[in-house]
């Protein structure tokens, strides 16, 4: 059986790299934390991996804006490699600060475009928001104007899951309304914040005021996935406030990482 290799890119201020590594290893992958400087010394090393993760944290102290400096650094020095990796169909995930990096370098919503056309801005509250939230998984919500998502990371999830959020800049904003319509039509909106019963969430369950309560998006192909909530913080049921898990032992975060590992296998 092939051993799936995951690269977890870290830099100054990254702080969710260990949990992300544990999440991938729990799913049977061999996960390696690689500092951005090490990758810059050997850029083609990236193609030794099957999956790439941009973990959460406060890269470069969130200076200027969250994820901005790492996004610029990766794009200007590794841009062609990252784009090739994404277009090859290999799974890429950006969690929280990693999502901000993917959006600000333009790998999301569309790596072939590789241009920033959306952003994650300051929460409406102006504060750091940290709590468990409910997420509507859009894969089962396909309707007249909305395609079912191709996101390989979220296959077979139930209609509503719960994950923790912890961010100050998580308000998803697209460059215009047409882009939101496009994302919806292409099935690129993966999670929306919702109430416990699936209805529209209000603050604090909608932690940031995102356009259409968007919490996660993917590219058209479904291999590049960015989300503000932290799946790596809910891989065991013991991490949940009520000790809930989908199989008694594991949380929904594990199902997300497992999907990518199984996809590569």
């Amino acid at each position, binding site marked *: 059986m092939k051993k799936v290799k995951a690269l977890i890119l870290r830099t100054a201020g990254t702080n969710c790299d260990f949990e992300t590594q544990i999440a991938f290893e729990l799913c049977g992958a061999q996960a390696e934390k690689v500092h951005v400087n090490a990758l810059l010394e050997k850029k083609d090393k990236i193609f030794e991996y099957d999956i790439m993760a941009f973990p959460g944290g406060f890269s470069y102290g969130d200076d200027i804006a969250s994820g*901005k400096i790492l996004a*610029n650094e990766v794009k200007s020095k590794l841009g062609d490699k990252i784009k090739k990796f994404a277009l090859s169909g290999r799974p890429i995930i950006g969690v929280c600060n990693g999502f901000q990096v993917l959006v600000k370098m333009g790998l999301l919503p569309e790596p072939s475009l590789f241009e920033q056309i959306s952003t994650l801005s300051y929460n409406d509250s102006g504060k750091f928001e940290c709590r468990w939230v409910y997420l509507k998984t859009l894969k089962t919500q396909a309707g007249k104007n909305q395609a079912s998502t191709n996101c390989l990371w979220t296959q077979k999830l139930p209609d509503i899951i719960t994950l923790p959020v912890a961010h100050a800049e998580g308000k998803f904003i*697209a460059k215009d309304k047409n882009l939101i319509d496009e994302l919806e039509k292409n099935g690129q909106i993966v999670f929306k914040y919702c109430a416990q019963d699936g209805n529209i969430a209000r603050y604090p369950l909608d932690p940031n005021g995102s356009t259409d309560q968007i919490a996660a998006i993917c590219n058209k192909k479904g291999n590049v996935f960015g989300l503000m909530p932290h799946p790596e913080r809910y891989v065991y049921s013991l991490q949940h406030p009520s000790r809930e898990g989908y199989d008694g032992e594991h949380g929904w975060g594990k199902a997300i990482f497992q999907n990518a590992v199984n996809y590569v296998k």
Partner: protein
Amino acid sequence: MYEIEISSKKDFKDVRGLNIFSEISELGIKGVEKVTYSQVYKIAGDINSLEAKTIAAELLSDKITEKTSVKTAEPSECCSLPNSFAGLQNQSLSLIEVFYKKGVTDTVAESVIKAVKDLGINKDIKASAGHRYYVYGKISQSALKNIAEKLLANTLIQEYKIF
């Protein structure tokens, strides 16, 4: 030296300005009608105007939600009226500017210096990062001083100026 000011575009919420406005109300200070916020970077060194504009557009601002203003300024103008405020000043608009004191490590500025090199602008620059709060309403100097010291500046490490 270039002075780069970053503020919210018209159609986007100025979250930090709104927050400060709300906190001023909580302090019990009357007369403030609105507060708007700008991040300010002063960059000195051997860069030209095009490079300064690239730094502003590609690094210091968010293309979707923020607008930039790039102006030249003499280093000696550090304590005078900012360019962006010239012509706006009147009895109903004041400006409070906050920067680190000399000798205090400006970590954001250090990140800017690193990130400018990442952009491919391989020049030696000096940078400083600060904040501007435009306060609308007829407010006394003592109230502005109160706002600056209680809300906007940690006077142990930061200095503020009221214009």
